[in-house]
């Protein structure tokens, strides 16, 4: 059994191991666009300039999956039949084993902004980090100007009883530009004490 489940579902989304769910040309249809340029403005991920970028990303994804260092999931809306045309984005669960911490990351295509999908995804990954991977901490962060992420993170961190740790100056570099990073964590104790109902169905292998 892999450390990470091959697929899982939450209330409105289905998540599948990214490198198994999409091939490079399918992924490039989303990551090679102007839309992706806009949505990646505040995250440490850049537009794919050609399909080879998408291929390299998928290969790196597969390697990190096998090594247990990072799980990238393609997100699809559940009710939709034509799934690859209705791809919603990528959710990442990044265990930092020596720090007993899972870092979370996400990007969503614009159609999926502002509808609570980031929070729905976070709840599931928080549960996986503590219950399946036996980690002690979940961490998330956003850069100074990223209001959408701030709102989403504040909401789910608060739901889980976690805390805002502060802002670290010049902590990350995006487009050659140093940015401040706001950091949040949820500890295992906070997770155990929180009364949050997680809608999560795990599949060990892909159908």
């Amino acid at each position, binding site marked *: 059994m892999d450390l990470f489940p091959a697929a899982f579902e939450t209330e409105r989304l289905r998540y599948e191991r990214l490198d198994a769910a999409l091939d490079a040309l399918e992924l490039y249809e989303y990551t090679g666009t102007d839309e992706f340029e806009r949505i990646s403005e505040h995250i440490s991920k850049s537009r794919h300039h050609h399909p080879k970028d998408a291929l390299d990303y998928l290969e790196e994804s597969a390697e990190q999956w096998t090594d247990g260092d990072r799980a990238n999931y393609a997100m699809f809306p559940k009710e939709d039949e034509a799934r690859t045309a209705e791809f919603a984005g990528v959710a990442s669960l990044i265990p930092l084993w020596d*720090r007993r*911490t899972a870092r979370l990351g996400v990007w969503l295509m614009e159609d999926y902004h502002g509808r609570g999908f980031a929070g729905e995804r976070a709840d599931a990954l928080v549960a996986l980090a503590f219950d399946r991977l036996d980690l002690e901490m979940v961490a998330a962060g956003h850069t100074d100007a990223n209001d959408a992420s701030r709102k989403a993170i504040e909401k789910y961190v608060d739901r889980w009883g976690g805390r805002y740790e502060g*802002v670290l*100056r010049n902590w990350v570099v995006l487009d050659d530009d140093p940015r401040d990073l706001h950091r949040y964590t949820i500890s295992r104790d906070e997770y155990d004490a929180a009364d949050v109902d997680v809608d999560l169905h795990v599949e060990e292998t892909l159908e």
Partner: protein
Amino acid sequence: MHVGVANLDCLWENRRVHTGVSLYRPYWGRGYAGERARALLSVTFDRLDLDVASVAHFEGNENSKRQMEGWVEDFGGREDAYIRNAVPRDDGDAEPWNLRSYSITAADYRDAGGAPEVELDPENVPEPTSEPTDLDRANDGGDGA
């Protein structure tokens, strides 16, 4: 005479330095960490033209906390964050360290008047010694002190 080690890690892309110090025990409590900090800030801002100097200590290290808070405040800096599980311990085999992190910006430094007493190119530099003067060496910070 060798009393310890002062670190200046340049993160050029971040336009930030991270500073740290470890002093041999006989040299604790003499204000050396603060004197060293003023010199490293001068190098950071007056010579290297970087934008931020950061420093951190492990939660629970009261000596480091006291000396750091002193000079960070003198230069108008601030405490930035308390980071849980920030640093691996024993190669990941033990509970990770929690870290308290501080920073000073170039603007803070200039507003505070800088560190005019620091001579960046003194005419007489003491000869370094290869061996520490006391083996009871204490590193008092995670990424630094």
